[in-house]
């Protein structure tokens, strides 16, 4: 009790008793989460403004006679005539490891009922991206666990790779699989004591999604044991446009903490189309001039300044990285629309998902022809480079020939053989959702494909053969897999052992 009294007296004594100058204003208009304020002559752009009742807003429009501010949180209590004051601060969110495993809102307030978050630091939501000198080129891989991506559209740490496609084509699934795979790799490295492995922490920013969808994602991550390596930032459909507009920036701030402290982070923005729509709403209510499709003129800058914060830093600046996987939803496959083209021009490649492929049963429905990674094989381990180098070309030739074969003309034996091989490759790249493949399994399976072990297998049995081969390798050849993981390349010894293992398996396999 006496400690408590001392604490109170100490708090009271610290309070400054001299009158401090404040800059105030009066709310003249309030509607849809935006307040028009008279006064506030000293306010700065993006400064936090304090409203009565402990609410805060951000000053976004500085006009001659009034200030337009967006309100963070519940704006129903704010009314005309309320006095507001400047705080001299920028909007900051809590950052740090304490947020891992937690679901928070845009301001970092926990939503999961697991108690308050005692974070050691705060970072500003709006921050200028790292300069050119601080950066290093992307050379470390992000293993998504999706064979098609890791083989043909490899993603590196510090890269921005866009996931784009129509609704229900598997965009979020790709992101979730990536997060699950990172968590598994983190756990495996921790258990095996691999000091060279750099853990990758994930941040999933949900913008404008249904709460039921987000609950499902959280459940999947929890069941896969990935939630403890992930921060979830939620600004769902029922949240205000302000919260939806700020959520990706808050998530980026949380990721930047990892990057600035020499660690690696992966951030998923799901999705930026809804983010642009929320920004459009905020801008229109602020009476900013509208441009194409009613978006404000700076909608490109909205996404460019967000995505530029994903980077790989050089050793002098901690060697950390933040990889961004923004998601964009197209309408009827139109990648030439306004927001999709904006984000495509910003990112370092895209993974394009097609509805047609999805309904043909090719899942993940990745269009290999339209998807690209501008970082390329610099983000692949040597083993993958050795094995997957020609697959994209083979698939391109296969697609050409398959279109030609539809005309029903007689084909020579070599063409038929090539078509069958292409069909097997397509079948091999199909993968169940939430089932990422470890990189050593991917290497082994691709080696088997490239060395024709799949050729005797009918196309419809390819997945079964792959599954059984995987089981065989995991149960009988775990030391070989560990060696592949450690050495990250297929040298003579590993090739010999793989040949032995595949020969043994093939001889015992019965269709």
């Amino acid at each position, binding site marked *: 009790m006496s400690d408590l009294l001392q604490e109170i007296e100490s708090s009271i004594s610290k*309070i400054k008793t001299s009158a401090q100058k*404040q800059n105030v204003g009066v709310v003249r208009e309030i509607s849809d989460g935006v307040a028009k304020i008279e*006064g506030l002559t*000293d306010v700065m752009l993006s400064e936090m403004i304090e409203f009565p009742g402990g609410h805060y807003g951000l000053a976004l429009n500085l006009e001659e006679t009034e200030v337009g501010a967006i309100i963070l949180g519940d704006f129903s209590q704010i009314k005309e005539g309320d006095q507001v004051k400047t705080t001299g601060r920028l909007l900051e969110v809590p950052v740090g490891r304490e947020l891992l495993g937690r679901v928070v809102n845009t301001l970092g307030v926990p939503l999961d009922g697991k108690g308050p978050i005692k974070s050691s630091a705060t970072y500003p939501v709006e921050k200028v991206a790292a300069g050119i000198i601080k950066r290093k080129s992307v050379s470390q891989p992000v293993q998504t666990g999706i064979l098609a991506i890791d083989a043909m559209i490899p993603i590196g740490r510090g890269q921005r790779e866009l996931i784009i496609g129509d609704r229900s084509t598997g965009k979020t699934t790709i992101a979730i699989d990536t997060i699950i795979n990172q968590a598994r790799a983190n756990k495996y490295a921790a258990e095996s004591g691999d000091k060279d492995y750099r853990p990758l922490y994930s941040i999933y920013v949900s913008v404008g999604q249904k709460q039921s969808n987000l609950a499902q994602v959280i459940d999947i991550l929890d069941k896969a044991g990935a939630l403890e390596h992930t921060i979830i930032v939620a600004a769902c459909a029922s949240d205000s446009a302000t919260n939806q507009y700020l959520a990706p920036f808050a998530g980026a701030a949380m990721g930047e903490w990892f990057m600035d402290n020499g660690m690696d982070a992966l951030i998923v923005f799901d999705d930026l189309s809804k983010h642009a729509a929320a920004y459009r709403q905020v801008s229109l209510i602020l009476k900013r001039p509208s441009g194409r499709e009613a978006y404000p003129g700076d909608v490109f800058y909205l996404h460019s300044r967000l995505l530029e914060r994903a980077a790989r830093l050089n050793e002098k600046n901690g060697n950390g990285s933040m990889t961004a996987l923004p998601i964009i939803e197209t309408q009827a496959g139109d990648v030439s629309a306004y927001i999709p083209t904006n984000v495509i021009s910003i990112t370092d490649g895209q993974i394009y998902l097609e509805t047609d492929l999805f309904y043909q049963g090719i899942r993940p429905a990745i269009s290999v022809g339209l998807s690209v990674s501008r970082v390329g094989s610099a983000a692949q381990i040597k083993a993958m480079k050795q094995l997957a180098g020609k697959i994209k070309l083979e698939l391109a030739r296969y697609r050409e020939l398959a279109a030609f074969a539809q005309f029903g003309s007689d084909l020579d034996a070599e063409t038929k053989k090539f078509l069958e091989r292409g069909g097997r490759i397509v079948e091999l790249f199909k993968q169940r959702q939430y089932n990422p493949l470890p990189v050593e399994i991917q290497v082994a399976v691709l080696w088997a494909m490239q060395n024709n072990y799949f050729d005797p297998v009918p196309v419809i049995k390819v997945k079964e053969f792959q599954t059984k081969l995987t089981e065989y390798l995991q149960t009988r050849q775990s030391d070989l897999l560990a060696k592949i993981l450690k050495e990250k390349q297929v040298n003579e010894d590993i090739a010999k052992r793989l040949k032995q293992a595949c020969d043994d398996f093939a001889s015992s396999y019965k269709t």
Partner: protein
Amino acid sequence: MKIKKEVKRFGKQLFRACFVDDQFDQKKALSLIQSVIETKPRHFVPILTFFGKLVRLETEKRTATIETAAALDKGIEDRVRGEIKKRYPQVLRTQFQVKPDALGGMRIQVGSDVWDGTVRGKLDELKNTLS
């Protein structure tokens, strides 16, 4: 949007025309208002409304409001007036108001700048700090 721009532009022109030697001339303002009412240009009502808003904001900038819990004696009032004039030379009007809920001390507002030395203000600050 187009109408609003014209209204603002005309209103600002009207407002600037009321200044003589950087001082707001009340007589000139009244005569300008009268001539606008007589000539009735397009959107004159919104123009005059916007003009009124600019005059109000300018008046607030040049007015110092001092709130105290009890009435001050003339000596203190003159001293306060002098200090405000030193810091804010543009202030033309000083008004003293008695607000018992201030409990004690003084609150000075000039335009958007507020110096809150009232007991009420300190109690509110303490409440925010402890919460």
